[in-house]
């Protein structure tokens, strides 16, 4: 909200503080001042007197004026405004005056004629343009004839105001009322608050009837005032409204806006003479189209709260009045409405009709002090009498309403027990008094009555917050919780995730974080772990982010695409994230690599990302997790696979379950995501991190030497080498402790369709030194087995 310091000063004295001091004070009690600005700007603005005006010799619209600017000084000023004339009192910007946005007044020549200043319009003073009248923008502003020449023009006009931009918290909507804000300042500064008199005037009996037929309207008040005259509001009222960000219209509308500004109570006015029956029925159940006072047609639904007049829609409660009953320039007799409506219902109406008006916000946010309704009506009537020449004022017609008195009991030890402070009961009493909370004290127990405008107070914690606010949050000491020891630790899964993250990063991969929400056109790509439908948003911002992803690979491909577009060719990335489908949550890890993994060009050292690099990453992860090779198999993907290259990809299987995948992306997918040569792996961590694993157990370091023998086997080229190695190890009866494949060869000297595989076998027996005879026999046995199982034979 925008708060005028000059207006605030009407209710509580603040003009002996700087605006910054007041802002700091307000911020310290929870009303954060987000900005401070002058209502009008310009430092060298004075009241001037136009002594003489002659046409500019070289222009058909400019005039050369001799303007007295104080102390007998007369300045020559060239002025282009059509309404400038000799004998006027005007606002003069003297040379050096800064009107903001780089507009600085200088001594200058305009078409050859010297000009030492500028005669200003209101629109040139830096006031928000939407608050101004057309005439404020059309020409220079003419001041009253008695304006003192040479005096500060802004001060003379009351424009020397400062506006605080306050970010009110949702629980303190009551402070939208200047009086409530004044109470806050008064409590903090220990100063009195001056609330305008709102007492009953000399009143006549009213013929208005009010009939509330819904419990969505706890209170409805109507007051008839006759004989008003519509005209422009006095300057002081116009200025206060503008300083508060409200555009002045005419005295009647301005009064209703001013009363809301002052009290937080929205005011609506009906033209008494347009009503056939002088009866207001508040109810729901209308279902029709209606034209409201902005001239537009709206659809009213049965749940909307309506103030009905003459069986029709007199007003959409708290939102906007009907067109038929609205006041206009010819209105003389007015019915003023001040009421309380159900905020949540009203919010739905206002939102649906796209009419979140200032008034409706007061209801929605709960700013209404229902107990004050009668006084607000009186205040309106008094202002109408004062500023609109109202002739007859009638008694208010108010429904019976009950304001429940809120009583909260509190002890001093409870206050200090929650805040960690040592505040005395007396100090609590002082704070309660400053906030106008009444209370009775018994020992250290306080029984507190909450003021009616504090809708936010419901329990002792609320009052403790009030005490803390006024005591000062900066006075609260600082300590650490004194309590039983608790065990602080990551869960095993959390530790594994962290270990993997650091492992992959240490292996040279970059961790990325990408969006969970993706497009339906990608959500099923690369998905292996989810078997249910995607989680779809009811109201997404766009199709592109409308469902939650199932695989992380599409996101990584997009990141690779982004990097390639920015000249980053070598991209090695991974992400660990939860993925969702209907009723399933899985933690995924995905790796995607493209380009050069390791490269020292001058040494001709390079390793390009390929299937085996990705497989190496996965094997390293598995080794770190203690998942032995014997627990999983790598199964080639189906030949008709659409996501992964069928000849270069495999599923990681545990039993019949796919727990991961390693492979090159399918050329079609590469095309879709506009990437090239990308190798990926994705793992289902929800399965892998919850596997049972044996504890680390030390085995004796063998004392006898090992022996290494190389063999080269020729076999059909489609035989998976891994299967052959497995057979060899099995045939080796636990004496083979290591195998290294050191060459795969196809070509000359090898029959076509065959390959030669060279393997180094390391033999070791923990109980004795192996002799040649034993090893030779074992190799014989191995050769027999591979011959039988794979048709492989020793290369000669």
């Amino acid at each position: 909200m925008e708060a005028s310091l000059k207006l605030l000063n009407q209710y509580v004295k603040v003009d002996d503080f700087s605006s910054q001091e007041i802002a700091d004070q307000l911020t310290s009690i929870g009303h954060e001042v987000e900005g401070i600005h002058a209502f009008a700007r310009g430092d060298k603005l004075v009241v001037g007197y136009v002594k003489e005006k002659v046409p500019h010799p070289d222009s058909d619209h400019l005039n050369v004026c001799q303007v007295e600017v104080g102390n007998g000084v007369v300045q020559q000023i060239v002025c282009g405004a059509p309404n400038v004339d000799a004998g006027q009192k005007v606002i003069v910007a003297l040379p050096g005056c800064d009107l903001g946005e780089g507009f600085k007044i200088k001594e200058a020549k305009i078409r050859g004629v010297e000009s030492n200043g500028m005669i200003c319009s209101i629109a040139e003073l830096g006031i928000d343009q939407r608050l101004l009248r057309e005439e404020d923008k059309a020409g220079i502003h003419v001041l009253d004839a008695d304006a003192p020449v040479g005096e500060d023009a802004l001060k003379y006009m009351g424009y020397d105001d400062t506006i605080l931009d306050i970010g009110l918290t949702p629980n303190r909507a009551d402070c939208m009322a200047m009086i409530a804000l004044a109470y806050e300042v008064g409590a903090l500064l220990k100063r009195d608050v001056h609330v305008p008199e709102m007492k009953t005037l000399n009143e006549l009996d009213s013929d208005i009837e009010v009939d509330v037929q819904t419990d969505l309207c706890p209170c409805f008040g109507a007051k008839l005032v006759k004989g008003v005259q519509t005209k422009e509001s006095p300057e002081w009222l116009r200025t206060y409204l503008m300083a508060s960000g409200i555009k002045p219209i005419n005295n009647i509308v301005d009064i209703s806006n001013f009363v809301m500004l002052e009290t937080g109570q929205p005011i609506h006015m009906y033209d008494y003479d347009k009503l056939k029956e002088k009866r207001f029925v508040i109810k729901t159940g209308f279902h029709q189209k209606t034209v409201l006072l902005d001239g537009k047609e709206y659809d009213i639904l049965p749940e909307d709260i309506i103030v009905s007049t003459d069986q029709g829609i007199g007003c959409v409660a708290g939102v906007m009045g009907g067109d038929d009953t609205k006041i206009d320039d010819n209105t003389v007799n007015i019915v003023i409405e001040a009421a309380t409506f159900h905020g949540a219902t009203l919010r739905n109406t206002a939102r649906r009709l796209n009419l979140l008006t200032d008034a409706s916000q007061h209801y929605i946010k709960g700013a209404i002090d229902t107990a004050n309704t009668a006084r607000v009506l009186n205040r309106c009537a008094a202002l109408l009498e004062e500023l609109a020449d109202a002739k007859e004022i009638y008694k208010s017609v108010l429904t019976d309403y009950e304001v429940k008195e809120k009583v909260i009991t509190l002890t001093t030890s409870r206050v200090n027990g929650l805040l960690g402070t040592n505040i005395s009961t007396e100090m609590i009493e002082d704070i309660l008094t400053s906030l106008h909370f009444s209370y009775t004290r018994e020992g250290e127990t306080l029984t507190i009555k909450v003021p009616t405008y504090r809708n936010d107070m419901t329990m002792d914690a609320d009052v403790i917050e009030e005490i803390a606010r006024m005591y000062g949050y900066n006075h609260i000491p600082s300590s650490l919780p004194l309590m039983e020891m608790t065990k602080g630790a990551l869960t095993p899964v959390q530790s594994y995730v962290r270990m993997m993250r650091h492992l992959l990063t240490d292996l040279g991969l970059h961790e990325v974080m990408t969006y969970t929400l993706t497009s339906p056109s990608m959500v099923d790509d690369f998905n292996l772990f989810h078997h249910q439908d995607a989680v779809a948003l009811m109201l997404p911002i766009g199709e592109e982010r409308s469902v939650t992803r199932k695989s992380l690979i599409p996101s990584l491909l997009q990141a690779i695409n982004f990097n390639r577009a920015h000249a980053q060719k070598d991209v090695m990335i991974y992400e660990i994230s939860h993925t969702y489908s209907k009723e399933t949550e899985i933690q995924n890890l995905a790796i995607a690599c493209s380009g050069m993994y390791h490269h020292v060009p001058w040494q001709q050292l390079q390793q390009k990302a390929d299937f085996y690099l990705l497989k190496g990453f996965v094997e390293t992860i598995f080794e770190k997790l203690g998942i032995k090779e014997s627990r999983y198999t790598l199964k080639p993907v189906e030949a008709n696979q659409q996501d992964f290259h069928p000849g270069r990809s495999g599923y990681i299987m545990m039993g019949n379950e796919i727990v991961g995948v390693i492979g090159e992306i399918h050329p079609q997918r590469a095309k879709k995501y506009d990437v090239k040569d990308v190798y990926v792996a994705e793992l289902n961590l929800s399965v892998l991190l919850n596997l049972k694993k044996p504890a680390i157990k030390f085995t004796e370091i063998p004392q006898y030497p090992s022996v290494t023998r190389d063999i080269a086997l020729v076999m059909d080229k489609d035989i998976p080498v891994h299967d052959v190695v497995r057979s060899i190890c099995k045939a080796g009866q636990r004496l083979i402790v290591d195998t290294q494949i050191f060459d795969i060869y196809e070509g000359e000297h090898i029959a076509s369709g065959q390959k030669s595989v060279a393997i180094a076998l390391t033999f070791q027996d923990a109980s004795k030194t192996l002799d040649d005879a034993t090893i030779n026999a074992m190799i014989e046995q191995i050769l027999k087995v591979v011959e039988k199982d794979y048709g492989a034979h020793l290369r000669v």
Partner: protein
Amino acid sequence: MDELLKIKEEALSKIHDCSSLKELNDLRVFYLGKKGPMQSAMKSMKDMSKEERASFGQVSNKVKQEITQAIEEKKKILEEAEMLAKIQNEKIDISLPGSQLPLGTIHPLTMIREELEDLFVGMGYSVAEGPEVETDHFNFELMNLPKDHPARDMQDTFYIDENTLLRTHTSPVQAHVMLAANGKGPIKVICPGKTYRRDDDDATHSHQFSQCEGLVIDKNITMADLKGTLELFAKKMFGEKREIRLRPSYFPFTEPSVEVDISCYNCNGKGCSMCKQTGWIEILGAGMVNPKVLEMCGFDSQVYQGFAFGIGLERVAMLKYGIDNIRDFYSGDLRFLNQFVRKD
């Protein structure tokens, strides 16, 4: 005798002139071997008298000794020269780049998350995560945001159906933890994770972001404890000189609620553009757990009380590293990630 001395002089001169270890070895074999001149000279001994033989033997031994010693000395010199030559030959350009292995990076939001986890785990907190696809009940109702609360308007939340949504904050994890504790304290937990709001993405808004919730519940937890805990956080993340300032604020799930500022680390509180001349930077929201939340989550609010805080990880990272576009976190841009290669 003269012959021996002649041999000696000739040998010493040749050893002196010798320039390689091989040549030196040849000289050794020649002079001290069985077929060398010394051996020939010895043959004349059989014709000598006993006295002559004794003195001849003496001289010959001495000559042998001298030659052996000269060879040993020369060998040392030659070996050293050879090693120096080898070293000279093996010289490389140490200014060429090393065969550095690739270095990956941890995402800056993860760095912040891990720093927080370490800080709080060290103080006895556990880490809870909770689902990102959450129910309305946990995300809002249990956080004291009933159905008609303005803060839960449709435009702010990604709803999946009437009762399911993408969590808008990590606060619902509080409720999961409290309900699992069955009304029995103490609870000390932090809840880091991803959160979502229905915002259009721009430099300062992201529909996906990260938070870290903190929750401590026991019988005597005070707002002073909250302040002390957050001071530790501020010092850990932004340096030992940081101070914090609490300002009253409002969150439905805490009462009293506070907004927490840290003294500006850029100007040490003097006022600069980073802190908008105030000397303070808004960093997080916190407060004492609202008794209504305690009750709804199975705790007796007459017995238990506690504090909660919510840290925006992007905000911390943006302040700490001077990042000004929130979208950088989610682009996977290596030019961004590579700046976080070192340990902070």
